[in-house]
């Protein structure tokens, strides 16, 4: 009987221990788990959520955001997420939907409260007039690279704060306070950037991919073509010949590329005299650009350096 009792005690102990271990989340205060598709959204979420959130980005800043590898290691992260923040406008179309199939987390599926599309309040540029694959890998809802315009950064921050507040109203006051502080910081930088970027007005440039449209509109740069034939389609010899001619005629000063190969930018540079410039399109794309504000600042300063340097 004593042995049985001992066994029973042990069983109870083991069951309790395992239960507690499995439910650690309930025993200890749990941070809000936020997964973002790109690091820009993660940085802003940190600024707004501070200690209340545990945030991680699936894509790293150095990656090409349209073609992030579908890694199974993303699955447990998505499985445990309270919120999923994405750029939207089909930016993540090639790699996010397959992950939904296996993440077993209905909270973050499209249409649910934990699925936060940060593009909802953005004034979208370049909606295609023709939706056809002859136009390359176009985004039917418009250009998704709105994160490169800092004024859109304010809208993104507001969207994130609203999503956090909506899902976790008990912390609304904190989120709004942090948002106010972050917006104030952006408001200090935005006029400064606008003034700094004055020499960029009218500068003609060629991006590798159509990702600098929002930035160009904000600071008055003129885009006169792209290295790619169409979005996602590598340049053909004919396209390059035409582009070189146009760049010479228009006196293009910059060729901007990111995670793409520098082969074609350098080739174009040698033929036109324009400067090839590798710039981050996401936070973390360069070591100095490890926050959203630093990334915008880095991009403007680097462009200015290239333009002023002749």
């Amino acid at each position, binding site marked *: 009987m004593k042995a049985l009792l001992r066994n029973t005690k042990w069983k109870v102990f083991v069951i309790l221990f395992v239960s507690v271990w499995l439910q650690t989340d309930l025993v200890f205060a749990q941070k809000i788990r936020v997964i973002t598709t790109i690091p820009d959204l993660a940085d802003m979420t940190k600024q707004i959520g501070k200690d209340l959130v545990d945030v991680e980005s699936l894509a790293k800043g*150095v990656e090409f955001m349209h073609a992030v590898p579908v890694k*199974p290691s993303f*699955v447990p992260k998505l499985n445990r997420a309270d919120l999923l923040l994405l750029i939207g406008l089909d930016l993540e179309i090639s790699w996010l939907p397959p992950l939904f*199939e296996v993440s077993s987390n209905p909270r973050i599926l499209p249409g649910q409260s934990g699925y936060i599309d940060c593009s909802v*309040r953005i004034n*979208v540029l370049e909606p295609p007039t023709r939706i056809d694959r002859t136009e390359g890998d176009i985004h039917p809802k418009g250009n998704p690279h709105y994160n490169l315009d800092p004024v859109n950064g304010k809208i993104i921050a507001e969207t994130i704060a609203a999503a956090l507040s909506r899902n976790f109203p008990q912390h609304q006051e904190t989120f709004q306070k942090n948002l106010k502080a972050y917006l104030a910081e952006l408001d200090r930088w935005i*006029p400064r950037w606008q003034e700094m970027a004055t020499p960029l007005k009218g500068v003609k440039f060629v991006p590798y991919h159509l990702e600098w449209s929002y930035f160009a509109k904000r600071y008055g740069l003129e885009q006169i073509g792209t290295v790619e034939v169409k979005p996602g389609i590598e340049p053909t010899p004919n396209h390059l010949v035409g582009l070189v001619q146009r760049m010479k005629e228009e006196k293009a000063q910059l060729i901007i590329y990111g995670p793409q*190969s520098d082969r074609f930018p350098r080739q174009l540079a040698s033929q036109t005299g324009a400067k090839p410039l590798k710039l981050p399109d996401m936070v973390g794309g360069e070591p100095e650009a490890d926050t959203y504000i630093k990334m915008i600042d880095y991009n403007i300063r680097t462009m200015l350096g290239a333009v002023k340097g002749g």
Partner: protein
Amino acid sequence: MGSLVRKSRLVSGCVVLSYVFLLPRTGLTQESATDTLRRQVTEMQEQLKKALERIDQLEKEKSATSGKIDQLESAAAARIGQVEQSVRGVQGAPSLFNPAIGMVIDATAEHRGKAGGNFNFRAGEIGLSASIDPFARAYAFVNGNNDGVEVEEAAALTTALPWNLTAKGGRFFADFGRLPKYHQDALPFVNFPLAIERMIGGESQADGAELYYLFPTPFFLRATLGGMNKIGAENERVDNTKSRSWSQFTYMGRLSSYFDLTDNHSIELGSSLAYTPSVRISGDPSGSDRILSGVDMTFRYQPLASTLYQGLVWGSELFTNSERFPFDDGAKRRRGYGGYSYAELKLNKNWSTGFLFDYAPMVDNPSQRTLGYSPFLTWQISEFNRLRFQYSHLSNNFKADKAENGNQFFLQWTTVMGVDIHGFQIR
């Protein structure tokens, strides 16, 4: 004279008086002017101070106003964005309830040794995928080729089960191994490895149900349990249309895991087992069991900063099959081992090359085997358009079919119309 003197005295008195009175007044007047000047300076200073304060105030008001203008601009832009999204939503409304649709066309020009050449239309495969309701989604692949039209997959799966569970039912490619659940057009080379063709029966097609469980671990670990009529699109052991004892069904399990070794390197491991308690093969009335098992390993090098241009995939699978086959007057258990290993190197954004080694036994006589060596070169013209050239040399230790012997050449052209809905399982 006296009056003159008096007048003089009076004038003098007045002068003196005036002097007495006026002189100090002059002194006082001089002091008062200084004060006035001082006062005026002070007043001017105050006015200047006020003016500067006013300028500061105006500047503050101006910056506040410009901030407000920025805010108004942002709000207006956001509102325009919302309206535009609504408009796009309304414009897209007629197709909102249509499933995502894609069609894969896969054809080869091929020469198979002594069997000769052929233009082989391998797939005109229509894929559909859509949510059913908040609790389920479904997908289907219907393939038409030289053998006719077949529903390759048509399955529904849950999206909202608790405890990390997902259930799937219908016809689907069973979660057995890695490449067996690929559609042929999605393979990294032209044909299924012979080991998969012979031991599984091509694609792991199954009519049945599967249950997946995602372990709550920090790394990816998933278990699958399933019950089905059979596994293998070309597995002829069981007729899908006939009812039979539950002992003649196939029950399978799989455990798969994945680890990021570094940001750029990863390894994926899997182990599968399919058990059929009683297989009825003509000539063997005993109806003994069949055990098909497999292990798979995939190593990937995907440098994050240049995923578009560089990469290496090394994938291998090993299968074992154990079952009884008719032998002389009775039946004998045969155990066969087979598998493949391949590596594919990405040369740049559009080009990749690789090599496939294949070892495939005949399941009813494992001592008869085929060795395959297949270098291949892929030109990914765009995401949805691909050309591939493959040379294969097949070597048999028995008299094999002409089409599975000697030197073979393939030129494959694969295109995708619409949406590619193959999803996670062929990532």
